[in-house]
């Protein structure tokens, strides 16, 4: 139930500040002095269920256009795929995978999904 383009809605006024608060979004310290594998541990543990929920959707969507090829590739060739990434990034993803109890390949897929989505 929306009109077709061209869009003609009047520019909105007076919406700020919205009833939502910036503090509704949790802030986490990412301490770069810690070993990479420990930087995201608390966040990953707190949000594990939501991350699993999202990744299951991503896997279904990736499977729907690749017929399982990409997921198989990530599962089988993960060490090779990770080998060209910055060491700290790999360690951070390993830390997240461990804290959230999610396979590392799925965390990697999640972290590169923005590029996959574009193509």
């Amino acid at each position: 139930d929306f009109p077709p383009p061209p869009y003609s809605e009047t520019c909105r006024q007076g919406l700020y500040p919205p009833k939502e608060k910036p503090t509704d979004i949790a802030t986490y310290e990412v301490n770069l002095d810690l070993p990479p594998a420990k930087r995201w541990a608390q966040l990953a543990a707190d949000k594990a269920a939501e991350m699993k929920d999202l990744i299951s959707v991503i896997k279904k969507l990736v499977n729907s256009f690749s017929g399982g090829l990409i997921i198989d590739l990530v599962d089988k060739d993960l060490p090779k795929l990770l080998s060209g990434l910055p060491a700290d990034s790999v360690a951070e993803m390993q830390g997240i995978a461990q804290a959230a109890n999610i396979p590392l390949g799925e965390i990697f897929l999640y972290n590169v999904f923005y590029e996959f989505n574009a193509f």
Partner: protein
Amino acid sequence: CTSIVAETPSGEIHHARDMDFGLLMGWDTQNDTWLLTEKLRPLIVTGDFTRNNQTIFKAVSFAGYIGVLTGMKPQKFSLTVNERYSVKGSGLSGILKWILGQRTGSWMGFLTRDVFENVDTYAEAKAVLSSKLLIGPIYFIIGGVNSGEGAVLSRSIEKTIDTHDLDAKNGTWFVLETNYDRWKAPLFIDDRRTPATRCMNEMGAANATLANLFNVLNTKPVLNKLTVYTSLMNVKAGILETYIRFCADPCWPW
């Protein structure tokens, strides 16, 4: 996505964005929502990246994602990333090269994270983001603290195709990017650029505040069913505010 960098007559720089994500990623016919978009909202967090107990930069992120799609380094620069779709050099070739072992290009998320950790000036951030080889095409939108410090970099895998800089003295007091090259017409059914530009011009440079940018970004269809959050940034003041957004019906799906 829609990203805007605006300069006021006094030379203050504001940077704001709507993060839209999940296009064609499963439409929930019962609730008229995008499946992936709905799953992303509970994952929104603000990261306060510290060294020696001091904030180095702040970023709006999705839990589990270690890159930066929206971020601000106080007193230095701000950055947002918008998806760029390109049939020629779509990113498929970059991903295939990566899989086959040719590791010359950078994944965008890891690159932006590296820029925030290791770069300290607007000019250097702009230079790095302009020149690095990438896995796929992208728009980088950067802002700074001084007059003229704002730009949209239209990136292919290999190079910067176009740089659109703030130039308030010559009338360009804002730069605005959705998901289309500025020298081409946007897709007819996904034209957020025209209404956003109209609202910016109605607002005028003298009224370019974060509050008014929030109004622009929450005018439909700039705000749409894909919008996950709106972020407002002022690098000089060290402000990064983020609001989770929902688009009440009637609302365009993108």
